């Protein structure tokens, strides 16, 4: 039991490291294709963290939708644009300074807030074995309490599809 808990904590650090390293890779690499693959690594690390938080459905959706569909779309667009010759210039110094400053201020602020946040010291325990599975619970909620939002999301997807078709036309008559 003790050994298993140490193992789970170790896995948290490993997957967080994968996610953070992937995220850093996205902004450091000059080649957009390398950035895209680093982003896939970051999404897989995030999905592993979701699964560690007992959100199995969300973790799998994260891998399927983000790691699969969205990233294939990104790579496809990168391939269409052939931008190998474009990324030769260096980053602007002002932009790098601004990005570093904003994110460091954000992280310092976050650390201060988390330091004062007393519910934040709850330990990740083990769920009771008789708790219902998350797919069942989420499905029940989605088709009872959140049924109207589900339909609105369906309409949104339809609008997005039509919008993409209109935008992709060569010229509007």
């Amino acid at each position, binding site marked *: 039991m003790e050994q298993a808990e140490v193992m789970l*904590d170790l896995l*948290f650090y490993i997957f*967080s490291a994968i*996610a*953070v390293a992937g*995220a850093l890779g*996205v*902004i450091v690499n000059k080649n957009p294709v390398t*950035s895209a693959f680093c982003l896939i690594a*970051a999404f897989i690390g*995030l999905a592993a963290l*979701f699964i560690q*938080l*007992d*959100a199995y459905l*969300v973790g799998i959706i*994260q891998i399927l*939708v*983000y790691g699969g569909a*969205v990233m294939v*779309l*990104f790579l496809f*667009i990168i391939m269409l*644009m052939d*931008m190998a010759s*474009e990324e030769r210039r260096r*980053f*602007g110094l002002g*932009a*790098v300074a*601004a*990005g*570093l400053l*904003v994110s*460091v201020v*954000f*992280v310092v602020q*976050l650390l201060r807030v*988390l330091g004062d*946040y007393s*519910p*934040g*010291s*709850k*330990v*990740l325990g083990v*769920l009771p074995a*008789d*708790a219902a599975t*998350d797919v069942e619970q*989420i499905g029940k*909620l*989605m088709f009872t309490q959140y049924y109207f939002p589900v339909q609105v*999301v369906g309409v*949104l*997807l339809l609008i*997005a599809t039509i919008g*993409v078709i209109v*935008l*992709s036309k060569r010229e509007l008559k």
Partner: protein
Amino acid sequence: MEVTLNHFLFVSGLLFAIGLAGVLVRRNVIVIFMCLELMLSAANLSLVAFSRFNLTESGGPDYNAQVFLFFIITVAAAEVAVGLAIIVALYRAKQTTDVTQINSMKN
């Protein structure tokens, strides 16, 4: 050291900060868009963490947050499709993906 809610929130905030830095630093519009996706996912992590640590009477996580997350992922997927279509249209009009070159609205 035992893993607590703060650990997950910190990782989430760190990923969000990295994505924010990427949006400010990078000039390629596609990489900026990737960083936006990263920020969305980072926010999702804190939602899942709050859902898992805020146990209901039945002993399970609060699944309302996970339904909300489902909607976020759906909207993000729609956003990616529309955004990439806009980027392709922009590339067709300007022949560039560098945001500093796209400045016809400036002045």
